[in-house]
Each structure stands twice: as structure tokens, then as C-alpha cells.
């Protein structure tokens, strides 16, 4: 245990995902030894992310205005919506260059053990987007694990009566992994091999 400010910083860092007590201590002492302008820039970036970044009112991706960059882009088409769990999955799919439609970020997957049901995700908002009739295909790109698959199953049943083409990312993604860890080639191939639900 250290005194005052340095221990406060270690405690705060230790609450971040993936940062254990050892790493928190290492980062804290790195900050202490760093150039003051570097530290000020880091602090400013932390402030800015909370002040400026919000969620897109259409797709719930991260955005710096009402709508995110992708929803505002007139060169993208409105005929397909790709449903993902988290904003980081949008980034992963964008890197493949395979998809020119729009996204919908659910904010997680259905996980009853953690108390997350359909009402806790942006599913009602997705249904509202689909009701316009403009969307012809719904691509379910939830994580290839049990919760992600169950969420895709739930959405496929819900959307089926609307007569859309419902597809799911398939081959190439091993069950049990996180989408963000798939390499671009694997993810690209999964896009080609998607199947109708």
C-alpha cells in the first residue's frame, strides 16, 4: 500500500478490465515518471471521451454526433443491417471491407445467468428500424459462442414473420471465441459463407 494520490491511481487503474494489481502498480509508476505534457494529454483524452462520445441514436454504435459515421455515410446502402453485440465488433467487420450496409449494436448478448434478457438489449429499436420495409437482409453477427448463438436464434424467430432474408456468420469462426479475435481472412470468409436462418 502506498500513500494518497499514487494509491488512489493504483486503485482506479485496478478497476479497469484486464488490469490486475501488478499491472495497475506498473502503470501508476509509469505515469509518475512520465513527461507532464504526456500525462496531461492522457487526462484530456479521458475527459474528452466522456464529454464528446455518445451512442448513435440509430444504430447505438459510438458516435461524436447524433448519428455515427457509418449511419451518416450516403455511400452505404440501407438494404442490409448487420447486428453485432458491441461497437468493437463494428470495427472488426469494417476491417474486412466486405460490408457496405448499416449496423445495429445490441449492447451485449442474451445471457439469463447474468440477468440479461431481450428487453435489456437494443432489440425493440432494431424492430423499429426493420418496420420501415427498406431493409431486405438482416445479418446476425453476434459472437460465435453460446450466448451469441442463442441471441441470433431469438432474433431469427422474432424477425422471420417480417419476410426478411436473415443470415448468420458461419464457417471460419470457431465456437467459443470472441468475434474481435478473428483475423480478417477468417472473418471475410465467414461473411461469404453466411447462411439463411
Amino acid at each position, binding site marked *: 500500500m502506498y500513500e494518497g494520490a499514487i494509491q488512489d491511481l493504483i486503485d482506479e487503474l485496478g478497476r479497469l478490465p484486464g488490469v490486475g494489481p501488478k499491472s495497475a502498480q506498473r502503470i501508476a509508476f509509469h505515469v509518475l515518471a512520465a513527461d507532464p505534457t504526456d500525462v496531461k494529454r492522457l487526462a484530456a483524452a479521458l475527459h474528452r471521451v466522456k464529454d464528446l462520445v455518445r451512442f448513435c441514436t440509430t444504430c447505438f454504435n459510438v458516435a461524436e454526433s447524433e448519428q455515427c459515421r457509418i449511419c451518416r455515410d450516403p455511400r452505404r446502402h440501407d438494404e442490409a443491417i448487420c447486428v453485432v453485440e458491441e461497437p468493437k465488433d463494428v470495427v472488426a467487420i469494417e476491417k474486412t471491407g466486405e460490408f457496405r450496409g448499416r449496423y445495429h449494436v445490441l449492447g451485449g448478448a442474451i445471457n439469463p445467468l447474468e440477468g440479461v434478457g431481450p428487453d435489456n438489449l437494443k432489440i425493440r429499436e432494431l424492430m423499429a428500424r426493420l418496420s420501415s420495409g427498406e431493409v431486405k437482409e438482416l445479418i446476425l453477427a453476434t459472437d460465435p459462442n453460446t450466448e451469441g448463438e442463442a441471441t441470433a436464434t431469438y432474433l431469427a*424467430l422474432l424477425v422471420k414473420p417480417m419476410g426478411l432474408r436473415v443470415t448468420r456468420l458461419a464457417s471460419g469462426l470457431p*465456437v467459443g*471465441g470472441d468475434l474481435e479475435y478473428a483475423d480478417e481472412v477468417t472473418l471475410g470468409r465467414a461473411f461469404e459463407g*453466411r447462411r439463411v436462418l
Partner: protein
Amino acid sequence: MERHNGTVTGFRGRLFRDDAVVLRVQKLGESDRIITLLTRRHGRIRAVARGVRRTTSRFGGRLEPFGHVDVQFAEGRGSLHSISQVEGIALFGGGLMGDYPRYTAASAIAETAERLSPEEQEPSLRLFQLTLGALKALAAREHEAALVLDAYLLRAMAYAGWAPALRECAVCATPGPHRGFSVPAGGSVCSDCRPPGAANPGPPTLALMCALSEGDWTVADSSPVAVRREASGLVAAHLQWHLERALRSLPLVDRSRPAEPVVQTER
């Protein structure tokens, strides 16, 4: 990223092996997971599966929820062990995730098993067998998911020592069947013992609950939907009364009729 260096150096835990059911998986750090398992001989165990979320992980999908697996654990210093090897025995999760009512029922079974094994590493062979059997039955699709869940909950409550009285009065033990049912009183109540606010379930509902707790599937499978709903309500109320915290998964169980398989392959 720096991983497990420093604290673990020089410490090599004892290895032990057991078969187990995967109850819960939770993300840990960048690519690990904490897996909660109910083992056959070592009770409930929490263990780290390192790198399991990477698509190149050698664990692959074997540590997904609801699977029956053969695991080699490396004993940790505290209560948290790590998983060094895993083989699938029957990965029920694969079949359950494509059927939403079965997935939600499996979640409620897993959460109940976790709750009824409060102490880590306290062997509970009966609970293990009960849980494994229920997941196997769900995956086999021979009975409606909600029936499998309610049968499991009734038997799990019997294992915990607080099964509802069904054939006799919970208060005076007079043989029934009785008309009244009171969760606080412990189940069926005779007309002399019934407290205010006791419910009046239909006789077929109590008969269904008896059938489910005794494994009489002929009776259970032929029961009408309304009777199943009423029995589910009483089972859930009885369970929640005895657990200090409500189960998170129980309100999310989808009790609608199972849908036709909807997955088809393109081309």
C-alpha cells in the same frame, strides 16, 4: 500484454482431473474466462481458462456453457484453479443454443445448480447427477423444455431438503390430495391447516408436480398447457421463497412452445 508473471513464478499446482458440467462462463481480462463447473467428485469449482476467447485457443468451444466435459485442473494458490486440459464428453450447449426455450431453461438449471452448491469444492454427487441428467434431457428434446426445468427444480429442492409437500399436508402430514397450497407453509395444506392467502391449484396441477418429481413422464407429457403453467408458477414461487436472492434467469425462461428448427443452409 503481460500475463501471469511474477506472482505465479516457481509455483506449480497439483494437477487433478474430474468430469464436470459447465455452469457459467465469465470474461476475464483480454482473452481469458472464469469457468464455473459442477464436478462429479470435487463439487463446484471456479477455474481460469487462459486464452479461451482467442479463435486459436486449443480449448475451442469445449468450455461453453452446459457441456459435459473431462477436465484437468491445475490447483491454484487460492480458491481459483486453472484449466490445463479439457475433452468434451457431450457438448449439450451446441444443440441448446439453437432453441431459445431450451437455452433459457438450461440457464435456469445452471444457476440453480450453482446456488445449491454454496460451498466451493464440497462434493455433491446427487446434485451433479441431477444437473447432468437434466441437461441431457433438454438436449434430447423428448420433453418440453419447461417440463424438464420444473422436474429438475422439484428434485433439486428435494436434494436441498425443502421439496414442497405434494401428497400430504405440509403442516400436519394428513394424507391428501389437498385443495390448498401455501408456499410459506411448505406446500399442500389441508383445510384445517391452510393459512390465509393459500392458493387453490387445480388437482391436475398437483398431480403434474408429483409426476415431475417422481419422473413419471407419461403423465407429464400428456398434461395440458394451462396445468403446466400453473405448476411452473408454484414451483418457481416455492424455489424463490427458499433462496435468499432471486434467481436472475428464472423470469427470463421462455415457456412458449418450441419452434420448428429454423436454420437452413444457403445454396
